[in-house]
């Protein structure tokens, strides 16, 4: 369950997210903190650049590949979760602002956030009245129910998140989706009910406090059953947002134009400024950067930052640099430290690894200070409940704390070091570099590491995600990266650290941490009702996981984004970790 990012070349500078958070605390809808019209480096992180309400103009996006699907029900890429807000209105969404303000989930199609009853097992949402599809037909709660149902058919929509299938009660575990189950007027899912056209009720099989985040995925955006063409629905999804599809040439280009039916009261988080939005697909990544810097296009849709060549150009030219932003983009790179592979089953041996690593070399491998900040926690700063601490001197001794590492090796009973294998994805150049850096710094305390490269495509399915394989091949340290499905400790960490998430294949708790204290904290988090409780429990989880030394944090990833001077309302939305695509306009 992890949000995918098109992680090609993220780059960045040391900024304090706290500053961004403070400055954006006073935001109104659709804006970050301070508004500015004089471009400055990171102005889009701390506030809104070129704030404007001017309509008209064409905004052009380029993408070096293509979205997994333009169907809101079948996408998982962060950039596309961001982009689909232009034409799909889910029940809830993320607030259009930067800093910690952007972590808030707010109602979109729903009148208010869902109300939970029955011990967080029943969630009720009321729809705004008067919302219409682009063809003028009214949106009803059964359109939302149908949208949820169709995500159950993984043959039609293979790429989206699968939370509905795993969380809902009733026949959710066996329901094949409305394309196969044509009975009951296409309304065969028993755990979602629509008592009236503006009310929808979700029955969960277990208490789940984060359901408002789950329906913030565009999977909850309404789809009219009569217009659904299955796989081909993505060619023209019926819009409920400010824009609608005008044309779509598969794998080449799609064009959006303003939706005449749309009313700003439907979803105050999005805007309708440009008179046309064009997305070009499968453009060479370096070409995209050149076109972006030349002003031919306005946005790189993938939002993961420019390539090395453009990065050098931007950073060495003060004018270009003042038109760029370097936000922490929510993603984190790290190494799992497996708790079952000897001698790492001893916590002191794991701590020795934590201390020994040269964090600066790791940071350089992941793109230097513009590619990420040195990480010292198991929860990144973009997640609610993050608190800064430095248990293993990653920040005070970034070159590695050899003395402390040797001390831990003594306590572990391996004073002269030990042998260990490092697993990584050999087709990801940054992981190859970081694994070599890890190997070199472990050697300084006598830990002899051997590199084992695997292909990214099978990494979780066949190798690192299979505990039996990990044990039989002594994979003690395993490279990984993670982006939260929603920005709280549960959305970030349950799949990484809860003992209940260990599975025989496709495992994401690769450290195989099954610490009763951590498991208990996640249970408390599920049942927590107040925000302050949630924050304090999240902090405890973070500290306990780091004390267990099951994660070697490398960097909080950052992206170097370029904003052309003629683009308006540009700011970095925290949850998506890139510019808010639904706010942009042209001068």
């Amino acid at each position, binding site marked *: 369950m992890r949000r995918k990012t098109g992680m090609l070349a993220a780059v960045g500078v040391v900024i304090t997210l706290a500053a961004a958070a403070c400055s954006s605390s006073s935001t109104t809808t659709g804006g970050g903190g301070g508004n500015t019209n004089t471009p400055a480096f990171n102005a889009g992180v701390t506030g809104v650049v070129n704030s404007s309400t001017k309509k008209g103009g064409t905004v052009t996006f380029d993408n070096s590949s293509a979205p997994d699907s333009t169907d809101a029900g079948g996408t998982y890429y962060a950039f596309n979760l961001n982009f689909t807000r232009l034409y799909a209105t889910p029940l809830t969404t993320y607030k259009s602002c930067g800093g910690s303000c952007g972590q808030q989930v707010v109602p979109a199609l729903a009148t208010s956030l869902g109300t939970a009853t029955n011990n967080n097992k029943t969630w009720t949402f009321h729809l705004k009245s008067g919302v219409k599809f682009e063809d003028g037909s009214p949106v009803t709660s059964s359109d939302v129910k149908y949208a949820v149902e169709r995500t159950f058919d993984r043959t039609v929509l293979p790429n989206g998140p699968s939370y509905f299938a795993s969380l809902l009660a009733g026949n959710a575990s066996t329901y094949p989706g409305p394309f196969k189950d044509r009975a009951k007027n296409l309304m065969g899912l028993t755990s979602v009910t629509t008592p009236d056209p503006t009310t929808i009720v979700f029955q969960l099989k277990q208490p789940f406090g984060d359901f408002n985040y789950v329906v913030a995925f565009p999977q909850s955006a309404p789809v009219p059953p009569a217009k659904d063409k299955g796989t081909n629905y993505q060619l023209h999804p019926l819009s409920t947002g400010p824009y609608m599809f005008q044309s779509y040439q598969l794998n080449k280009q799609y064009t959006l134009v303003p939706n005449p039916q749309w009313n700003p009261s439907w979803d105050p988080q999005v805007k309708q400024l440009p008179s046309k939005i064009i997305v070009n697909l499968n453009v060479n990544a370096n070409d995209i950067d050149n076109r972006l810097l030349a002003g031919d296009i306005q946005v790189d849709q993938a939002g993961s930052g420019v390539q090395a060549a453009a990065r050098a150009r931007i950073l060495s030219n003060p004018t270009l640099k003042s038109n760029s932003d370097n936000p922490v983009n929510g993603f984190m790179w790290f190494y799992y430290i497996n708790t079952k592979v000897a001698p790492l089953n001893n916590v002191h041996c794991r701590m020795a690894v934590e201390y020994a690593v040269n964090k600066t070399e790791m940071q350089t491998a992941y793109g230097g200070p513009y590619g990420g900040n040195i990480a010292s926690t198991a929860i990144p700063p973009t997640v609610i409940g993050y608190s800064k601490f430095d248990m293993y001197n990653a920040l005070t001794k970034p070159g590695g704390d050899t003395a402390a590492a040797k001390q831990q090796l003594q306590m572990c009973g391996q004073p002269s070091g030990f042998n260990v294998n490092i697993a990584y994805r050999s087709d990801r150049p940054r992981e190859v570099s970081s694994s070599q*850096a890890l190997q070199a710094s472990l050697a300084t305390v006598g830990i002899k590491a051997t590199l084992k490269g695997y292909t990214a495509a099978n990494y979780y399915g066949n190798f690192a995600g299979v505990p039996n394989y990990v044990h039989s*091949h002594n994979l003690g340290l395993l490279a990984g990266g993670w982006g939260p499905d929603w920005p709280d400790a549960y959305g970030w960490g349950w799949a990484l650290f809860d003992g209940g998430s260990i599975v025989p294949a496709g495992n994401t708790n690769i450290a195989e941490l099954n610490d009763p204290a951590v498991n208990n904290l996640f249970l408390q988090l599920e049942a927590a009702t107040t925000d302050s409780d949630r924050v304090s429990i999240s902090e405890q989880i973070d500290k306990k996981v780091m004390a267990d030394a099951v994660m070697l944090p490398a960097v909080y990833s950052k992206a170097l984004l370029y904003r052309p001077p003629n683009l308006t309302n540009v700011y970095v939305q925290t949850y998506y970790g890139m510019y808010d695509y639904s706010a942009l306009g042209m001068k």
Partner: protein
Amino acid sequence: MAVPIDVASGPGGPAPEEALSASDKAIEGRSLSQIAWRRLRKDKVAMTGGVIIVILIVIAIVGPYLVANPNTYHSELIDPTYSRPIGPFGGISLNHPFGVEPITGRDMLARIVVGARYSLLIGFAATALAVVIGAIMGVIAGYFGGWIDSIIARLMDIFLAFPLLVFAIALVGVIPSSAFGLSGSNLRVVLLVFVIGFFAWPYMGRIIRGQTLSLREREFVDAARSLGARGPYVLFRELLPNMVGPILVYATLLIPTNILFEAALDFLGVGIIPPTPSWGYMLSDAVTQGFYSVDPMYMIIPGLAIFITIMAFNLFGDGLRDAFDPRSR
């Protein structure tokens, strides 16, 4: 060994009448290889290639003991903003004559020299494997003919039609990290030698088969057979020694192909395991991480190393072919 008479009197060597009338000096019989060596020595281009090859081999053998540790990090030599070496031309300095690697600051000279060892080792070993299999299969097919020839010829067709690159990628992915009593880089080197060499033999085999077809009807073969020599003796004592020329020529030309193929496999991420240095891997790194734009030397230096090596082998191989068979000039 028996020598076919007419080969000795190619246009490059002295004609019989001239030699007779030149002087009273005793006429020495020269072997094929002696004649070829004389011709080769006069070919300056080929000899330059040969000298470079010798230098490369010496570097590959003793070089790694003379240079710094290729895996030592020098992060102080790296500008973290761009992850590229500090200073012009990839950080070239007295301590690091070829500069340092971006990101890590590892010494490029050391990595090129140690990389030469692996490139040449794999190039030579894979070629040796291809030559041994190819020569044996080719001479058997050509000498016996009939159904044996048909089977071997079809086998060659199968090997030539094999999607080798896909197979190499799959095989390297499937083989566990330790097998056949080897592990890590050693296992990978053996694997690469096998993959590259085992699929290159049909080219060799076809050439040898053609040569055998023309040689087996010769008098010296008939003579050996009439004296009672059997198949294996004729094959390995009469036929093969007379094909040393083409074998040598073809092997010399196969080596650069194999080195390039190894570089290509490195480039695809299924070659030598890092941190062991390899030329192809450096090139691949420069391309995939985009260093060709911010630190072009990181691409130019391993690129030049590959270029010079391939060039040297090709020039020498061409010269060798001309020396053994001037008619093909």
